């Protein structure tokens, strides 16, 4: 098995098996995937196909049962818990479906939290957290608590928290899953903006409308990649759909 020197993320023959007392579930069954620096990839597929498991492994929240994973050329599949925490903090930004903001911290404190764990000085944290909030249009809500914000606003704060540490990659797991369509569009355009500014994004979604925002969509089924679509082909399909009278974002 070889690693890809050009890819930011490269996984090869990735397997993940969940073993309970009676059942052995193969969530991933030999996934090969590479994501280049600056690429915007979406992972799609039906419920239970292994999207979130793949995302968790990519985000170093979980370890593969078998297979290799290289992040920026470095093998990361078998790191210790503390090494993984360090890489998560510096290289990965997370956006969750349920936002996962900490209710007892203000908007500002939530956004600066990753920097706190990095041991950054208070002044630098403040500058970067305010910058990130400015970027998502939430700088006027720094002292608010998450419960005081709408779902869309909370997700914007979550995006700010994801990008505040300038990670190598932003992993978004169903970022619009808990939002209405207007807020979903706002979050998607925010991600698009981030991508245009150079961010590498990997997004899990089961909604084809949002999957199309990505340059490339990877389809998972029963723990395997069954299809990869390039953006050009997707754009053609979108045009066809529009011609047929469908309202496609």
């Amino acid at each position, binding site marked *: 098995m070889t690693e890809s020197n050009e890819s930011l993320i490269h996984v090869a023959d990735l397997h993940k098996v969940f073993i309970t007392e009676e059942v052995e579930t193969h969530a991933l069954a030999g996934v090969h995937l590479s994501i280049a620096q600056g690429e915007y990839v979406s992972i799609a597929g039906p419920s239970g196909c292994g999207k979130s498991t793949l995302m968790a492994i990519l985000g170093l929240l*979980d370890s593969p049962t078998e297979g290799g994973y290289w992040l920026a050329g470095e093998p990361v599949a078998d790191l210790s818990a503390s090494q993984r925490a360090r890489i998560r903090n510096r290289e990965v930004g997370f956006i969750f479906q349920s936002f*996962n903001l900490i209710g*007892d911290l203000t908007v500002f404190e939530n956004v600066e939290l990753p920097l*706190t764990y990095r041991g950054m*000085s208070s002044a630098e944290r403040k500058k970067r957290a305010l910058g990130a909030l400015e970027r998502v249009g939430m700088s006027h809500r720094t002292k608010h608590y998450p419960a005081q914000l709408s779902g869309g606003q909370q997700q914007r704060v979550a995006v700010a928290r994801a990008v505040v540490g300038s990670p190598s990659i932003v992993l978004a797991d169903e970022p619009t899953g808990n939002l209405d369509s207007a807020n979903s569009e706002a979050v998607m355009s925010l991600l698009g903006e981030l991508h245009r500014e150079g961010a590498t994004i990997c997004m899990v979604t089961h909604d084809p409308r949002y999957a199309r925002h990505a340059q490339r969509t990877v389809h998972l089924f029963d723990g395997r990649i069954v299809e990869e679509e390039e953006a050009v082909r997707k754009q053609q399909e979108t045009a066809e759909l529009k011609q047929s009278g469908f309202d496609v974002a």
Partner: protein
Amino acid sequence: MGTLWHDVRYGLRMLAKSPGFTAVVVLMLAFGIGANTGIFTIFEQVLLRSLPVKDAGALVIMTPQGKYIGSQWGPCVLSYPMFKDFRENEDLFEGVLCRRTEIVALNDGRGTERIGVELVSGNYFDVLGVPPAAGRTFGADDETTPGANPVVVLSSDFWRSRFGADLDVIGRTLRINDTAMEVVGVAAHGFHGLSLDSRPRLFIPITMKPQVSRGWERRMDDRRTQWVQVFGRLKPGLARERAEVAIQTPYKQIIQREVEDASFEGVPSEEREQFLQSRMVLLPGRRGLSFLSAALGSQLLLLMALAGLVLLVTCANVSNLLLARAARRQKEITVRLAIGAGRWRIMRQVLVESLLLAAVGGAAALVVTALTTRAILRFAPGQLSLTISPEINGIMLAFNVIISGAAALLCGVLPAWRMTQVELASTLKQQATAVTGGRGTRLRQGMVVTQICLSLILLIGSGLLIRSLVALYRVDRGFRTTNLVCFKLDLTLSGYDGQRQLDFCRQVRTQLRSIPGVTSTAFAKVPLLEGDSWYNGIIVEGYQPKPREDVASYCNSISSDYCKTVGTAMRLGREFNELDEMPGARKVILVNEAFVRWFLPDRNPIGCRVGLRWSVDAQPDREIVGVVCDSRSANLRWSANPQILFPYSQIGIDQMTVYTRTSLPSEEVFNAIRREVRNLNAGIPLFEMQTMEDHLDRSLANERLVGFLSSLFGILATVLAMVGLYGVTAYSVAQRVQEIGIRMALGAQRRSVVSLILREGMALTAVGVTIGLAGALASMRLLRSQLFEISPTDPLTFIVTALLLSTVALIACWLPARRAAKVDPMVALRCE
């Protein structure tokens, strides 16, 4: 540092967000930490604290060990001439001092007061390195010849309380036992002499002993009278063990000279040899000389252990609450971990919260500490309340801080570790309320089992101690305490001696008998229930001592009607009558049954003769006229020792305890007694007037203290354990609402739901009780010395306590079980 401050701020915010949780935890920790700090405050002052003198570690107490020929006035004593011999020894000691505590009558012109004083050698303050706070202390010129040094140094406390820290008191004259003495100075603040057992108000030169105790002149230079306690300050660098070896040579030389002295003529050669084999022991003197420490030491250690158990139960309970809280906060912690927090960082954050809780609990514990300390002093023997300060001090605060830190770690480590043991990916996908792991529940169950186990050990311990206390109250004492009052008179303090003392005693008895309602009155030298303080060598006619036997007996000097008044029955013969108290009466004695069993086992004791061995040529010159039944007169725990009772008129009496049997209410008889004694001599102070039942309570002060506090701790631990059990059961019910709903939908009866929940709680109780019983079986043996007429593995106590705890546990489980039975299946299922 910045991130730590961040954790502190967040921790404070979290605690403020849950004021109920915070208050409960703080309260529990306050009790746990406060109880420990309170007992430690006493423990430290009684058992650990050094004397406030220069280099206390260099002090040793000189104590002869082995056979002694002569009279001994207290423990750890030497004769005054022997002290002077050692004072000259400059090879081993930088200085050698002597001291003795006494009670005197002080008259400063405003009335007579009975106070404690310390008789000290001239070099006392110099050897100890205690400077004067005002005026001067003593020097060599203040210890010249008996009766020639009428000067006193005031203790700082007495100077402040009695004289308002007035410097003009120096140079004033005080009358002490009717002898004028001049105040020459005030001792350094905080210095209270060399014994924890008393707080001397004054320091008086040792050469003034004859003025304090009439007739002592001849004993000052008598080598056969041991009465001074001697402290030495070792030379720098000289270890106590080496000094003890080295001191044997001069000691042997001194006792060899004593044996060759005329006073030893007539002493059998075997006894001389035994005396010559005695040796000098050097005890550590760092903490001074305290018999209170020895008496209370084991009880304080026991209380420390019990309080420690309470703290463990408290920590287990708090830990349990934190574990429950950890389950609720798992989502938050998972997010933190997901965005890059290390596990140690998360643990630190949780531990900071525990530390904050413990810090607030520790601060609140100071109130509990004050209450505990005061409660102990209220129950404890009188002298303890005089010498122990319940005030907050640096050592108490330091202990409080240390134990609060320890409690924080005990409470916080497990929940902190548990919080970091999460499956990140799956937890992030779940709803916060649904995030609870089986491992967390098992940990909480483990905590509850621990609490039940520790509570049972505490309850069994307190049960044994309480039953022991009841046994002490119920034991056949050999005298009757009901309708009996007592008080003390010290005639020597008022200048009475010789025939005047005897006449006054007779007058007191006559006057008290005249009070309507008084059925009898009598007095004794050694009071009931205050130990056997008079132990004397004796000669028993016809008795062949066993090899190396020290033929001696406990003694007391009593008046006629004594046995009738205190309610001790006669086994044989008669008790003393007024004829025995007449001048020139035949010398007679009473003995107890233990005396007869030991010295006269196969003889009719009536008519046998016994003598007191006050001199080497003593004769058995006193005839036994009666045998009294054995009694626990010295201490309720002690079975009777051989005892001889003398008529007071034939042996003298200086301090006496008067007993009056009456049907009158105590206050009424107290007033009548005061009136009658005042009529005889208004200047004589009466002290320690009380009913005999109160005196009995005071004699059991230590046992009552330990019984009270152990019960309190046992109840506290049980309440905490039951709160924990209730919490775990209620939590389990909350988690299983859907399961219960399904069971009920499928036809389960309410009682089977109750039974399901009860089984779970009682299974935990059964495990806790089983481990607790095993732990108690193993540990209760340590209580053996504290128990009276009860085995440390008494089956009844074990079984009853286990049943009691199980019953309370059943109630704690029944409350959530009843709630479970009320679950509406429709609501439960719809809810999910």
